C-alpha cells in the first residue's frame, strides 16, 4: 500500500508538475507571441512614424522658397527626427534580409540628407536650384515609396502573425481550461481510489473486529492486499491466539466452577463496599440447598437476609474486620427460606477483584454436628444422672423400706387412735410415691434392655388407649374425650419390646389427657412407610398445646410443666423410642393441641441391640 501510495502520489505530483510546466511554457509562449505582435505593431508604428517624418521633410522641401517656408532649424530638427526614426529600427532584432533593407534605407536617407543639405546651402541660378530641389524631392519620394513597400510587407506579415498568435492564444486557452477543469476531476478520482483503497480493507478489518467482539473467534479475515494483508494476517493470528487463550480460560473456568458448584460447603461472594454492600454477588448450589433458595433467589438477597436477627446485627462488624484483612472463623445462626434457623460455621475473608472489595465466605451447616454434640452431652448427662440416681435410689430405698415397714407395723397397733392411724397410712402412701419415683429414676438411668418380639403396633396402641381412657379420670363426664382410631389395618408386624412400647404410648396418652382438662378429641393414627420401611404413629390431641419456647425442652429430663410432675416421663419415652432405632417429634397442631409423631423401623433390631 505504501509503495502504491508513493507511486500514486509521485505520478500525480509529476502530472501536476508537468501540467504546471506546460502551463508556464504555454503562457510564456503566448506572452512572447503577444510581445512579438506588439513589437510588430511597434515596428509598423515606427515605420509610419518614419514615413510621417520623411513626408514632413518633403513638405519642408516643398515649402522652401515660399512664404510658408520653415526655418533651417526646423528642417534640421525634422531631418534629425527622421534619422532618429530610422535609427530606432536598428534597435530591434531583424533578419539579415530586413537588416539589409534597413541599411539600404539608411543609406538612401543619407543620400536624401545630402540632397537636402545641398538644397539648403546652395545659392545659384534658378535652373540649377530647381534641379537640385527636384533631385532632392525625387530622392524623398523614392524613400517614401521604399518605406511604403516595407510597411506593406510588415502589415502583411503582421496580419498573418496576428492570426496565428490569436489561434495560438485560443488553443492555449482551451488547453488551460481543460487542465484547470480536469484538475478537480483528477483529484476527486485519486481521492476516490485512495478512499476505496483504504475503506474496503478497513471495513473488512472492522467487520472482523466486530465479529470477534461478538464472540466469533473462528472468524478470519479474507486475504487483503499490501499492508492490509499483513494486518489481516496479524489479525487472524491474534484471533487464533485469542481462541486458544479463551479455550484455556474456559477450561480453567470450568474447573473452578466445578470446584465452586460441587463444593459441599456453601460459598458466597458478597459485595463489601459501595451501594450494594452485603449483597450476595455469587453463591453456589450448596449455598442454595443449605438455605432452601435457588441460586437466582440468593443473588437478589443480602447476606444479612440469611442471618438470624442476632447474627445480622453483627454482620457489619464482621465485614469491617475482614476489610482490615482478617480472615475470620466463627459460628453463627442462619435462617432458611422456611424460617428454620440452623447453625453454620463461617470461614470468610477479603477478596479484591478489579479494585473492588468483596467478601469470600465458606459456610458449613453444622446442625448435625451440633445435634451429635448435644446428644453426646445428653448421654453424658444421663449417665451422670443415672449413676447419681441409681446411687441415691439405692441409698434411699433401704431406709425408706425400713421406715415404710415401721409405719405399717405402727399403724396396725390397736393403741393407735384412729386419727393417728390415718396419718400413718398417709405417710405410708407418700413413702410409696417416693419408691415409685425412685423406680422411674432407676428406669431412666438404667433402662432395662428391650425384649424384642414380633409386635402388632395397632394392638399395643389399642391396649394403651383402653388402659388410659377407660376406668381413669382422664375421660369422665365432666371432661369427655372422644377417641378416634385411624389405624392401618395392614401394618406389618415389627420386632419390638411390647412392654416398653406400651410405656411409650401410655406416657404420651397421659400427657394428652392432661392437656385436655375440658375434654376433647384424641386421634391415634398408624401407617406404614414402605420405601423407608418404618411404621409411623401419630397421636394428636385438641388440648392446650405446648408453648413454643418449651417445645425444644420437652424431651429433656426433669423438665415439667405439671405441678407434681417428675419431668422424666417424656425423657424416658424418647429414650425408649431411640432404643428401638426410631424417632419422636412433637409439634403444635394448626388448630388446637399438639401431635406426637413417632416412626419406628421394621428392622431396627441390630441398631437397637447395639444401643
Amino acid at each position: 500500500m505504501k509503495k502504491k501510495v508513493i507511486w500514486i502520489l509521485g505520478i500525480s505530483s509529476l502530472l501536476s508538475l508537468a501540467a504546471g510546466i506546460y502551463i508556464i511554457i504555454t503562457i510564456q509562449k503566448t506572452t512572447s507571441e503577444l510581445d512579438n505582435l506588439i513589437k510588430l505593431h511597434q515596428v509598423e508604428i515606427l515605420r509610419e512614424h518614419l514615413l510621417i517624418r520623411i513626408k514632413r521633410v518633403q513638405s519642408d522641401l516643398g515649402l522652401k522658397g515660399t512664404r510658408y517656408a520653415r526655418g533651417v532649424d526646423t528642417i534640421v530638427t525634422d531631418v534629425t527626427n527622421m534619422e532618429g526614426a530610422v535609427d530606432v529600427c536598428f534597435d530591434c532584432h531583424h533578419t539579415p534580409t530586413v537588416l539589409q533593407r534597413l541599411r539600404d534605407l539608411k543609406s538612401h536617407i543619407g543620400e536624401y540628407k545630402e540632397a537636402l543639405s545641398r538644397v539648403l546651402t546652395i545659392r545659384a541660378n534658378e535652373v540649377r536650384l530647381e534641379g537640385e530641389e527636384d533631385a532632392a524631392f525625387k530622392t524623398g519620394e523614392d524613400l517614401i515609396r521604399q518605406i511604403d513597400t516595407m510597411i506593406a510587407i510588415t502589415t502583411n506579415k503582421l496580419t498573418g502573425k496576428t492570426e496565428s498568435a490569436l489561434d495560438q492564444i485560443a488553443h492555449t486557452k482551451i488547453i488551460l481550461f481543460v487542465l484547470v477543469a480536469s484538475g478537480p476531476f483528477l483529484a476527486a478520482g485519486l481521492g476516490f481510489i485512495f478512499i476505496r483503497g483504504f475503506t474496503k480493507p478497513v471495513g473488512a478489518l472492522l467487520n472482523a473486529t466486530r465479529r470477534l467482539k461478538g464472540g466469533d473467534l473462528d472468524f478470519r479475515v479474507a486475504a487483503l492486499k499490501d499492508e492490509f494483508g499483513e494486518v489481516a494476517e496479524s489479525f487472524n493470528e491474534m484471533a487464533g491466539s485469542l481462541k486458544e487463550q479463551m479455550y484455556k480460560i474456559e477450561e480453567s473456568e470450568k474447573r473452578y466452577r466445578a470446584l465452586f458448584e460441587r463444593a459441599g460447603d456453601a460459598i458466597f461472594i458478597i459485595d463489601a463496599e459501595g451501594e450494594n454492600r452485603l449483597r450476595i454477588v455469587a453463591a453456589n448450589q450448596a449455598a442454595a440447598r443449605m438455605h432452601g433458595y435457588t441460586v437466582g433467589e440468593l443473588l437478589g438477597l443480602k447476606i444479612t437476609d440469611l442471618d438470624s436477627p442476632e447474627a445480622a446485627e453483627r454482620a457489619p462488624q464482621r465485614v469491617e474486620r475482614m476489610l482490615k484483612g482478617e480472615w475470620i472463623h466463627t459460628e453463627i445462626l442462619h435462617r432458611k427460606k422456611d424460617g428454620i434457623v440452623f447453625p453454620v460455621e463461617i470461614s470468610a475473608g477479603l477478596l479484591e477483584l478489579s479494585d473492588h472489595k468483596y467478601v469470600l465466605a465458606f459456610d458449613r451447616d453444622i446442625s448435625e454436628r451440633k445435634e451429635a454434640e448435644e446428644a453426646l452431652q445428653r448421654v453424658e448427662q444421663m449417665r451422670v444422672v443415672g449413676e447419681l440416681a441409681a446411687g441415691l435410689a439405692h441409698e434411699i430405698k433401704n431406709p425408706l423400706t425400713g421406715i415404710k415397714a415401721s409405719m405399717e407395723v405402727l399403724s396396725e397397733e390397736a393403741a393407735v387412735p384412729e386419727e393417728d392411724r390415718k396419718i400413718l397410712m398417709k405417710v405410708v402412701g407418700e413413702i410409696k410415691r417416693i419408691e415409685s419415683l425412685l423406680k422411674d429414676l432407676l428406669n431412666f438411668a438404667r433402662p432395662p434392655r428391650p425384649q424384642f418380639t414380633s409386635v402388632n403396633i395397632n394392638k399395643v396402641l389399642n391396649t394403651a388407649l383402653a388402659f388410659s381412657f377407660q376406668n381413669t379420670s382422664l375421660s369422665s363426664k365432666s371432661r369427655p374425650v372422644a377417641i378416634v382410631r385411624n389405624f392401618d389395618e395392614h401394618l406389618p408386624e415389627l420386632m419390638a419390646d411390647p412392654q416398653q412400647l406400651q410405656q411409650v404410648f401410655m406416657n404420651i396418652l397421659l400427657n394428652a389427657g392432661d392437656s385436655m382438662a375440658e375434654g376433647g378429641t384424641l386421634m391415634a393414627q398408624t401407617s406404614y412407610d414402605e420405601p423407608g420401611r418404618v411404621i409411623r404413629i401419630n397421636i394428636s390431641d385438641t388440648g392446650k398445646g405446648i408453648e413454643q419456647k418449651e417445645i425444644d425442652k420437652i424431651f429433656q429430663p426433669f423438665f415439667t410443666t405439671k405441678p407434681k410432675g417428675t419431668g422424666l416421663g417424656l425423657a424416658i419415652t424418647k429414650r425408649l423410642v431411640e432404643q428401638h432405632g426410631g424417632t419422636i417429634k412433637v409439634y403444635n397442631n394448626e388448630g388446637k393441641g399438639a401431635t406426637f409423631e413417632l416412626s419406628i423401623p421394621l428392622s431396627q433390631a441390630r441398631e437397637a441391640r447395639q444401643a
Partner: protein
Amino acid sequence: MFRIFAAVFVCLALTAACSRKETPVPQKTVEEKKLVIGLIPEEHIFDQLDRYKPIADYLSGKIGMKIVLKVLPSYGNIIDNFVSSGMDGAFFGSFTYTLAHAKLGVEVLARPKSIDGTSTYHGLIFVRKDSGIRTAEDMKGKRFAFVDKATTAGYLLPIEYFCKHGIRNYKAYLKEAYFTGTHEDAIYDVLNKKADVGAAKNTVYERLAKEDPRINRDLVVLERSPDVPENGLAVRKDLDKTLKEELKDALLSMQNDPEGAKILAAFGARRFIETTDRDYKSVADYAREAGINLSTYDYMNE
C-alpha cells in the same frame, strides 16, 4: 490540484513581473541655462552637426552647462544671425571670423591642430583632369562652383586668383558662378561635372579624397591660397569671463583626458591650441590682396 493552481499563479505572477517594463517618469523640464554655439556649413550641414556634436557634449560636461549646436545654411548667415539667434559663440571659418571680429568683436579662443600637426588650411582651385582647363584663360565661359562669399578658400582664393590674372568681373567672364554653400558640394559638383571649376578648402578636399578615390584620380588642383588658421571657436565678447576661461581650458586640455582624446581623434585633430586675433592677420591681408574692404564687404551670396 492545488499544486497546479499554485504553479499557474506563480507563473502568471512571474510573467507579469517579468513583462512589466519601467515606464519612464516624465522629467520636469526646467529652463536650464544653455550655451548656443553656431556651426558653418563646412560640410553637409547634417554631417557638420554630427562631427561637432561629440565636442559640444564633451564641453557641456566640462563646463556644466548644456551646449546647443546651431548649424547655419551659409557662412554669411552666421554673422547676421549671431546676435539675433542669441548665439554665444561659433566655430568660425578664418574669413568669417575676420569678418565677425570686425563687425561683432567676437573673441577667438582656440582652434584644432590636425593629426598631421597643422593648425592651418589653405584654399584650392581644382578642375576635372579631363576638362582641359589649366589656366585662368581656360576658365572663360565655364561654370564656377564657389562655396560662399564669406569663405577664404571658397571665395577669397578664386577672387584673388581672378584678380591676379586680371579678371575683374568674374561673373561676366564665367558662364555661371554659384555658391554651393559647402566645400564638399563644391568638390563633388566639379567631380560630378555639375561645375567645371571649383574652390574649396584643402582639409575637406583631403578628407573626402580619403573616402572617395575619384577625387585624387579625376581632379587636378590648379591654385592654392596662403595658409590661414583652421576654423576656431570664438565667443561673443561679453560672455562671462570665467565661462570663457573654462571653455578655453576645457578645449586646450582635451587631449589630456582619455575621453577627450578619443573625441579629438574622431574629429581628426591632435588637440586644440590657443588662438588669438593676431593669428588671423594673414586672412585680412589676403582679403585686401583680393581687393576686399572688410568694413564694407557684403558677405551675403548673391
